[in-house]
Each structure stands twice: as structure tokens, then as C-alpha cells.
């Protein structure tokens, strides 16, 4: 049973096997690319690679590992689109760093905390993406709070279930 105290010394740090470390992000990317062919709204409201980034970052509780996890997953997601590579990379790097830093300090093992953390980081991710896409790449972007909050809630809801599923792959250090 994982220890979930908020004290930094007592917070459990987990690691994952290599197949899980590689396979889960790849599966998330695959589903993100494939599911919208059948359910077009999926790509509008759900960001599975972001959820995986948040999960790994929070579980490892290492800011460096978290930011690199976010950078790799984000860059891979960029490669599937046609926009310049790095927009998702930057956004997910920030999220990975933030989630792991938060994981060190807070108890993020229960469903409520996970829900709120995911909602918050979805908005952070959207804000960074919006800034970079509009400021650097000159893409036409419109910020919509209703859409952001709705999509954040959807992701948080899915995230709670996904995290409990992925908890099975955790290994204690």
C-alpha cells in the first residue's frame, strides 16, 4: 500500500519498467492519433499524452525526470502534426516539471487531488501552447475559457480512471 503523506521525506517515489516507460506513452500517442478517426471530438477534448505525462511526473517525483518525460512525449506528439516541432514539447516540458515538483510536496494519490491537479495542468498546458503558438509560430489562436474548462474537466475525469489503471504498473524504489 503506497504511503501518501504530504511530508517530502515520507512521500513514496516509484519507478517503472522499461516496457511500461516506453509502451504507455506510445500507446497514448497511438490512441490519440487513431481514435479521432472514429470519434472526431476525441481530439478536441482529450489529450492522452498529457495525462500520461502528468502521471509519470507525479509518480516519479523527480523534476528532471518529469521535464524530460514531458519533453519527449510532447516532441513525439508534435511530430504527428504538421506544425513546427516543439510547441507541444515546450508545453509538456513545463507540465512535467510542474507536476513532478507538485508531487514532491503534495499528496497526489487520492482521486480528488488527482482531479484538481489534472484540471489545473490542462489549463497550464493550454496556456503555454497558446502563448507559444501565437507568439512564436504566428498561428491563429483564440482562447476560449468555456472550452478550456470543459476540456479540462473531461481530461481530469478520464485522468482519474487512467491513473488508477496505471497505478498497477508502479514499482517501489
Amino acid at each position, binding site marked *: 500500500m503506497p504511503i501518501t503523506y504530504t511530508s517530502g521525506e515520507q512521500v513514496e517515489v516509484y519507478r517503472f519498467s522499461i516496457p511500461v516507460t516506453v509502451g504507455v506513452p506510445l500507446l497514448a*500517442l497511438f490512441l*490519440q*492519433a*487513431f481514435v479521432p478517426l472514429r470519434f472526431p471530438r476525441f481530439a478536441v477534448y482529450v489529450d492522452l499524452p498529457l495525462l500520461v505525462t502528468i502521471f509519470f511526473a507525479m509518480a516519479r517525483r523527480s523534476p528532471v525526470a518529469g*521535464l524530460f518525460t514531458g519533453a519527449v512525449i510532447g516532441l513525439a506528439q508534435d511530430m504527428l502534426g504538421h506544425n513546427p516541432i*516543439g510547441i507541444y514539447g*515546450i508545453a509538456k516540458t513545463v507540465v512535467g516539471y510542474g507536476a513532478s515538483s507538485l508531487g514532491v510536496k503534495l499528496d497526489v494519490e487520492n482521486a480528488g487531488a488527482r482531479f484538481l491537479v489534472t484540471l489545473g495542468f490542462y489549463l497550464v498546458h493550454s496556456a503555454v501552447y497558446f502563448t507559444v503558438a501565437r507568439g512564436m509560430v504566428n*498561428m491563429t*489562436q483564440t482562447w476560449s475559457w468555456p472550452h478550456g474548462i470543459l476540456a479540462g474537466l473531461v481530461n481530469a475525469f478520464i485522468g482519474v480512471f487512467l491513473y488508477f489503471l496505471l497505478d498497477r504498473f508502479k514499482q517501489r524504489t
Partner: protein
Amino acid sequence: MESVLGRYRNLIILVGVLFLQVLGLAVQVKRGNNNSEEKDTRLIRVWAVGALSPFERGIVWLQNSSGNIWHNYFYLRGVRAENRQLKEQIEHMRLEQVRLTEDASQARRLQTLLAFKEQFIAKTVAAQVIGSSGSDLSRVVYIDKGKNDGIDREMAVITADGIVGKVLLVYPNEAQVLLISDQSSGVGAILENSRLQGVLRGSANGEVVLERIMSDEAVQPGETVLTSGGDQIFPKGLHLGTVTKVGAGKDLFLNIKIRPAADLSKLEEVLVLTEKQERQATAEDHVRVRAADILAQRLPSVPDKPVTDPNAKSSASGVTASSSSKPASAAGTTAVGNAPAKTAANAGSSIKSVSVTGTQAGTKLTPATSQHPAGTLPAASGTARTAKPKTTTDSSTQAKSPSIQAIPTDSEPKPAVTTPPNPQPPAQEDSPQ
């Protein structure tokens, strides 16, 4: 110093990683503005696509296989009704085809006069959609055909319903297709009725809008939008979509929203136009069949009558009017196949004698002016109804008369009345009327 580095180690690494990515992004944006072909980022995109596409192909294959087994062997409910409905649809389309053939040949003649160059779709490659970008900010899909299948950049991608997009990046066995709903896409468009030209663009929220139409122009919702051909990617006249909403836009332009003809959210199979041909328009005279003729041929016929007057001749140029199936004109006057006069009369409201008059050999033939009530064709007409095409005394007329192919009926076998097509249809047969 070491304590500072150690204390802010994580933050320094974060800034370093972000800096590298920003630098890479800046380089791409700068080169993108210089219209380079993204060769620098192509390799890593190949890796990403190569890692995911085998799984996508596998899933699509599995889906199709299971779907085919279900639909082809188990789920056949309603097939009879659908078959009947499709047959009726074919009937309607045949009639429509006749009308369109007339329009097309007329347009061709006019294009010839104006020395137009036409673009033809010479070759297409069918492909299956196997993936997407997974982001609503990058509206692209991946197809399972690539460089090895003859796909190249900037090729148009369509479905039977309309335009889908263009090929953006090509990999050995896959290709990335930019949808017309992406905000970076642009297609030359023309409104079908008003002939106003604009640019069809996607937007950040996935809507498709028609830009560059002045606000003082009248555009009605429901109007069809076609490709204008001005972008040199999409051939002219392909279906783009329908106007759904017209409002005031920026800078004296209208804001016209379009519903794409192709369902971009449910793409499965697409066609890639791999080869276009541009050639001078020629006024080749194709088969001319009236709707009345088709109807007449499909209706039951009366028994053949013996030829009573084999010497029935045309009045002017020697075209013998005893043909039963061959159209006696090269300019739109066609004989009424082997159908009875009554049915022809029903279909066409009046029966004209098939004796024809050639004003000039092979150029224009007009029907004799005598008209007969339904079912009262004179002997010569009766001959024309049944006899074999006793064609002609004038070889040039024979060579230039078009062929007509009888359409078999389901209900009753009829004598084959197909005349062979002309080996070399005349290029300038029809003078403009």
C-alpha cells in the same frame, strides 16, 4: 558557485531544455517563412510516423476484415430493398446522363472555339486513412500510400463527395494529408451560380470559410462551392461544399461559412490524384441519346414488321432512313431504336418520321418535318422501327454518324441493335449551332 548550481539544478535544466526547444522552433519558423520543404524536421517525423503506422495499419486491417465478414455474410438485411432502390436510381441517373451528355458536348464545342485547355484527372490512387495528428490544432490525416505508390507532395486528395485536402508530406509508405479545414490550408474556389471567386480556408476551430468575396456581392445560403482551378492543385469544377451562413466580415469582405462536401470527420477511403492531363479541348461528338430514346428502348416492343418499302430514302443527301437503331443524325437527331411508335410517342410526345435530311454530309441532319400521331407511323417509319440499319449511300455520312447502344431491358429480350462505334470520331464534326 557549486551550491548555487546544486540548489537550482532542476530549474537550470528546465530552462536549458526549454531554451533548446525554443531555439529549434525559431529555426523551423524562420526556414518555414523562406518556403523550405521542412527537410530538417522530416527525418524525425519519419521516425514518429514509422513507429505508429504499423499499429494503425494493423488495426484498420482488423477493423475492415471483421467489418467485411459481418456485412458480407451475416448482416444482409434489407439488401433486396436496397437493390431495388439502386436500380431505380440507375434509371434516373441514365436519364440525367443523357441531359448532361448534351450539355457536355455543347460545352466542349464552345471550349474548342475559345481554344480552352482542359484539365483531366488522368490517374488516381485509392488510399485508406490510417491515422490523424490527434490534435484539433493540426488537422491532418495519414494515408497508407506513399512515395512507393507514386504519391507526391501537393497532390489533391478527394472522395466521391468532394475535396478532402492535399498531400503535405510524403514518406515511403505513408503520406500526410492536410485537410481543407486546417487553418493553414487554402483552396481556390468559385460559387457555382454567381461565379464569384474566392479562397476557401480552414479556421482554428475547424470551420471552413470562403474568403475574399466583397461584401456588396449577393451570396445565398445553399449555394454550391466548386474548385476554381486557380491553385494549380485541384482541377476545376470539383465539389467543395455548400454555403451555410453569410455574414459581414472584415475589411469589406463577406464572412461565408461553408459545409464541406466531404465528411472530413469520418474519412475512410480517399483518392489521390496522381496525374492530371491538360489538353486542348476537342469537340468530339459522343453518343447522343435522347431521354425519349432510352425510355422507348426500355419499354416493350411490338413484333417486327416486314420491310415493305426498302426504297425509302432521305429527301436530300441520300441518308436512308430505314435504320431502326442507329441515330440518323450527327447533330442530335436520333432514330427511335426498335421501340414501337406508341411508346416512343408516349415518351417523346410526338413521333417524327425518321426520314432525315442531311443539310451537309455529316454535319447536321434535321428530321423531316412530317409528324404523325402516336401509333400511326407510315410504312417508311415502320421500316425504320424494325429494320436493320441499312445505312447509307454517302460514305462520309456513314463515317460521321454516331453510334447508339441499345439498353437491354430486364423484362423482355430484344434484338441487339448495337451499332459499332465509329473507329475515328470526327473531331470537328459539329459546327456550333
